[in-house]
């Protein structure tokens, strides 16, 4: 098992490395470089009162290292992140990108995590029910609801929710905090307040995922129910209920657990778009604005961190899998 986990860990590091390069590539994508943008910004704000000398621009370039080859720039960027936790400067917000990330990322994490827990808590029992009672009325109803969940884009759900609260409830229901806590420092009370608000966006984000997971669980379990070892267990004289939980459900759990890996990117994506619509204080809106304004250090930082979050999630699912499945543990 340690060998396996070590291998997975190495592959995780490799993945993070590739992701960091992709994120860096993002910074390079917009035409011009950071200095050009900065200069434009300066010119715009100082409203032409002073022109910026080309020497100064060169100086800036020198300072940021834009004259150096690409790989040097990359190592400088990643080096600063690794050693000093510096993600660069946001010229839109005029703040340190790192501060913005530490402010927003935990919220994204909390929201994604809450969505995942919710999805599991709902999808697992329904998936089992639907497989065991295949073609029953309940199975049809859940399948239908699952299809709807797949088909309704989550930003639309967010919109509908917004609409309902706008019309019928007070507006404070939607954010992540009640008014009195919104700008208060962290405390137990604030945390509890957040948990109380979290479930609404978590439900919206999780709905599509729930539908997918129910179908996965149902299909897996249906597969497992016909396996010979189930027949063996039945021929032993085990009751249907005991047999179900000990054998096929346990087997079908495997793909379920590995969904942490592939479902997390979905939750993060859901978090981004739903937060934009509902204007929640998570990564979404900041990332969105940064991208629109081509505030690339902020955008790259967020994308890097969000991706790392999902990679870590995958790693955790690998650990869980290894603990659950002797075939992986003992290989």
């Amino acid at each position, binding site marked *: 098992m340690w060998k396996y986990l070590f291998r997975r860990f190495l592959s995780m590091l490799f993945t993070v490395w590739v992701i960091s390069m992709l994120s860096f590539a993002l910074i390079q994508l917009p035409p011009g470089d950071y200095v050009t943008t900065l200069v434009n910004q300066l010119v715009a704000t100082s409203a032409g009162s002073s022109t910026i000398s080309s020497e100064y621009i060169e100086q800036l370039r020198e300072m940021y290292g834009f004259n150096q080859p690409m790989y040097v720039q990359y190592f400088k960027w990643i080096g600063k992140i690794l050693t000093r936790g510096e993600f660069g400067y946001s010229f839109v917000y005029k703040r340190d990108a790192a501060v913005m990330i530490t402010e927003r990322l935990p919220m994204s994490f909390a929201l994604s995590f809450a969505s995942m827990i919710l999805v599991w808590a709902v999808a697992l029992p329904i998936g089992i029910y639907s497989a065991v009672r295949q073609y029953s009325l309940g199975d049809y109803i859940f399948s239908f609801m699952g299809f709807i969940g797949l088909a309704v884009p989550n930003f639309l759900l967010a919109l509908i929710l917004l609409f309902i609260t706008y019309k019928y409830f007070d507006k404070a229901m939607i954010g992540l905090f009640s008014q009195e806590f919104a700008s208060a420092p962290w405390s137990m009370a604030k945390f509890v307040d957040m948990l109380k608000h979290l479930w609404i966006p978590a439900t919206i984000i999780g709905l599509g995922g729930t539908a997918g997971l129910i179908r996965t669980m149902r299909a897996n379990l249906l597969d497992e129910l016909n396996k010979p070892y189930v027949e063996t267990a039945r021929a032993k004289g085990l009751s249907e209920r005991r047999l179900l939980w000990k054998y096929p459900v346990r087997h079908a759990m495997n793909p379920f657990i590995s969904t942490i890996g592939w479902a997390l990117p979905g939750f993060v*994506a859901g978090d*981004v778009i739903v937060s934009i619509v509902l204007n929640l204080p998570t990564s979404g809106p900041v990332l969105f604005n940064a991208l629109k304004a081509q505030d690339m250090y902020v955008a790259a930082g967020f994308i890097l961190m969000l*991706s790392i979050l999902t990679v870590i999630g995958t790693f955790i699912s690998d650990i869980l899998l290894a603990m659950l499945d002797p075939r992986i543990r003992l290989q």
Partner: protein
Amino acid sequence: MTINEIDLALADRASGGPSTESDVRIEVATQWQLMWWKFRRHKLAMFGGALVLFFYLLAAFAEFFAPVNFTTYNEQYVYAPPQMIHFFREGKLAPYVYGYKFERDPVSYKKTWAIDKSVIIPLRFFNHGDPYKFWGLFRGDLHLIGPVNASDPFYLLGADKSGRDVFSRIIYSARVSLTVGLVGVAISFTIGILVGGISGLVGGVVDNLIQRLIEILISIPTLPVWLALAAMVPLSWSALRVYFMITVILSLVGWMGLARVVRSKFLALREEDFIMAAQLDGVPRGRMITKHMIPSFLSHIIASITLSIPGMILGETALSFLGLGLRPPVVSWGVMLQDTQKVAVIAIYPWLLFPAVAVIIVVLALNFLGDGLRDAADPYQ
């Protein structure tokens, strides 16, 4: 005496004897047939398939099905609410809608639209209305239905902020939204089958490398990347270029899943008994691939494709909704939904959400269809 031969003989007979050339053909034919029978039994999938076909027909003949062109506007009827269509008047088939009038809200004193039952706007099937160039090629002005008097308002699903017909725009949008799915899938399918095919056929180190790469790419959250790439599309680009760029961006994210399906299919098929059997019977390798591998494989691929179109459609809608995807004057369901970003707007003009209904129906139908195809493609159930 060990009598394994009889086992073989018995097993052989069960599988229809040593397969000859003609047997192989029959097997393949019946495989498709079996799938079709299985698919036909899947009522929901049949229904989904019919709906999908319907929507693609709408998209193909948008000029004809839409009462007016999608750019046609009338500032007199900004945000006019939907009209109810009536087909019979005085017992005869004579479609009509009621006209509009302004009313002042007795409380807020705001001007609002109301249906004026005293005004009857007659409609006509196969009406000569807005002139158009069908597919940019043929001139025409025939529409399935339209007001007899061209200047009369006819807004089945209401009007938007410029007084354009939401219904017509939804139909024209289908053209963009649905083809984004098709073109996107075609691109990601090409990449996917190439990469997955190489991975599955070559195997070894190459396979390992490709699998690692796919793992990495899959673990990157799609939406932020879509957003990032879409945000980079220069504002100065033409609508068509943006359209292709967005499609490419969407498909860049979708190919990994397909590549995995293709690879696992190749691997599984290499092991499958019937391929072994064919090899034992001396069927040449080339025929083995075309007669045995492709059919069993194609069906799965078709199912996967059908199931990945909805993701593309939803992706385009989300991007355009956020203002990072397609841009006016191109009209897609996502572009239309941009108008609904403000809650206040939805609250007063809820019919602007109709494009979302179209998205949901199409995505549902594609999912039904794909599910049925997948079930039918699975020979062991």
